[in-house]
């Protein structure tokens, strides 16, 4: 793998996103983790992206349709 320091920001961001999405093959994943242990800039970017994903994941909870909306839908499908 090319050294991360030599990559453009855009490419580096794409690589970190692939790391987060577990789309990197194990050797690249390992190199990136090793790099992250010593490069503050990449580690900071990764951590802030992790916080972003954690926030997005939190939105998966508590999204039941309101009871009135559920009843309305059923009435429209079946009739009163």
């Amino acid at each position: 793998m090319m050294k991360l320091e030599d990559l453009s920001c855009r490419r580096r961001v794409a690589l970190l996103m692939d790391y987060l999405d577990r789309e990197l093959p194990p050797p690249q994943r390992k190199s990136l983790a090793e790099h992250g242990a010593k490069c503050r800039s990449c580690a900071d970017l990764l951590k802030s992206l992790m916080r972003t994903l954690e926030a997005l994941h939190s939105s998966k909870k508590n999204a039941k349709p309101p009871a009135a909306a559920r009843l309305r839908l059923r009435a429209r499908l079946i009739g009163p």
Partner: protein
Amino acid sequence: MGAERDLIEKSRHGDAAAFTQLVHRYEERIFRLAKNVCSGLPAEAEDVYQETFLAAFKKIRGFRKDSDLGTWLYRIASNLCFMRYRRKKSEPFVPLLDRPHGHDDESAHLQFADGLPTPEESARKKELVEQVAKALGKLPVDYRLVLTLRDIEGLSNKETAEILKLSLTAVKSRLHRGRLFLRDEFERVANPSAAARISRK
């Protein structure tokens, strides 16, 4: 799955009671998608939720038996969201942030945190959910759809591409730019003075 196929078959013949059982299986995820994409507009989210299932019942004869019902419903809901918002011209352009912002934390920890949340964490999560809704609302609808399907609903890039009829490259591009936009928004809320400093650079 056998039971689901049976319900689909009955629904294809106009059995509304059978279709209602399918609604029961999928309504939470469809409402969640609508709620996140129609961010901050609960009445619109409810409209999308209702219209999705009414349209699906009308069109279920055309549903291919080898397809996935959840994916098909997501597609209907996504189209409804897209039609609803594409007319609104005021949605902002999302710049790609090329420069990572600095933080003070020295540790380089590369794993997700795990374990059950404490009450403090739960309160923080509620706050996070509100922040997400606010930040998502600032994005164009196609970005909101990709982020919601990928990072909230947990679908793969491939599934997201199929639902939105986009190429994988387009999905990844919107996903990366959307995440960076949200990250920047969250950092700005968490640390307004640093954000102001960065924006002046």
